[in-house]
């Protein structure tokens, strides 16, 4: 599984990355987490509000930092 955190270094982007890492660890997923900071790449996903969470090229969250439990729920189907 490839997880991407879209955002350019603002506080919320760091928070989203942290929450995502927690969720991945909690679920024991085999996933790589990448940070995407290039504007053209971010826009390429149709995202105008950062931070955003992209899992296997699908945008799941944009413009907010979900709580860890929500990220676990979002990632759970992918782990099965």
């Amino acid at each position, binding site marked *: 599984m490839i997880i991407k955190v879209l955002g350019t270094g603002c506080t919320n982007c760091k928070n989203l990355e942290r929450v995502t890492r927690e969720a991945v660890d909690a679920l024991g997923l085999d996933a790589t987490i990448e940070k995407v900071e290039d504007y053209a790449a971010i826009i390429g996903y*149709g995202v105008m*509000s950062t931070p955003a969470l992209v899992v296997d090229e699908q945008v799941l969250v944009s413009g907010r930092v979900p709580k860890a439990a929500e990220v676990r729920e979002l990632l759970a189907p992918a782990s099965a």
Partner: protein
Amino acid sequence: MVSIAERLPTSTRRQWLTLAAGAVAWVTAYWVNGWLWDRFLYDALGMAPTDRLTETIHFFLYDTIKIALLLVGIIFLVTVLRSYMSIERTRALLGGKREGIGNVMAAGLGVITPFCSCSAVPAFIGFVAAGVPIGVTLSFLIASPLVNEIAIGMLFSLFGWQVTAVYIAAGLVIAIVAGWVLGRMGVQRWVEPFVFETKLGGQVIDSTAGLTFDQRIQMGLEEVATILRKIWPYLLVGIGLGAVIHGWVPAAFFTTYAGPGNAFGVLVAVAIGVPLYSNAAGIMPMVQALYEKGLPMGTLLAFMMAVVALSLPEMILLRRVLKPQLLAAFVGVVATGIVAVGYLFNLILA
């Protein structure tokens, strides 16, 4: 680590009860704030209410709690309400609009759209890709920080509706006119070329559509925590300075140097305000204390607008999409607008 919101009860009934309990606690705290410090300082510690030092300490304690309560309430409400709008919806509304009407709409939408300046670059590219004219996009980018809902709430609580209405109207006019003027200047050539080459991929994701009420409440709580964590040092310094000004600076001091008699008052206020960068909430205690000492409201509004509208971090971000010429024109036009508003309101509100 668990966020605050995760400890919230999940069932709807308990959630409403929690919200109602929160509202009651808020009102009670706001209501007993002054009384409590009276009892504590005058009765428990036996300090004299008329003593200057006591007055300063009382002002500081009372104002800290009052401002903190106002901020918590206002930020929470604003964030939850704003979560029903999104930058993506604003983009759709502005797409294909001509200049003029587009500038007016963009300024209005700039006020109500949830927008973090950290998203300024993707938003700018997204707007341009949707065919929104540059001048209209700039109207949005000017209005968004300039007419800030948290500032609206704070101004309303501290100074009443007239000052608040003046602030909103002035901010909108500046955003509309500045965006329109910049658009007329043919600024396309001063936008970095990559903006026009970048295409928005696939489907645009609406960031707030389909959120549950639960998630909106959670966003409100997180936003309160995020903003307070960021601004509390500025807030304490601001309230501290406010308390010192309140207790120790003679009223004649400011009116002599920056009062209505000083023709350069507004210019100086804007010149000081532009390099300063703070959240609108952070400077409100200072504004309040200076107003008490007789500084004209126009000068104070100009100062506040200069602080919130033009900030170095946002300029550095916008430099990614705007060439230096346009960035300079942007700062120049907005600063001129703020100065004009300051003088105008010193005349009207005097």
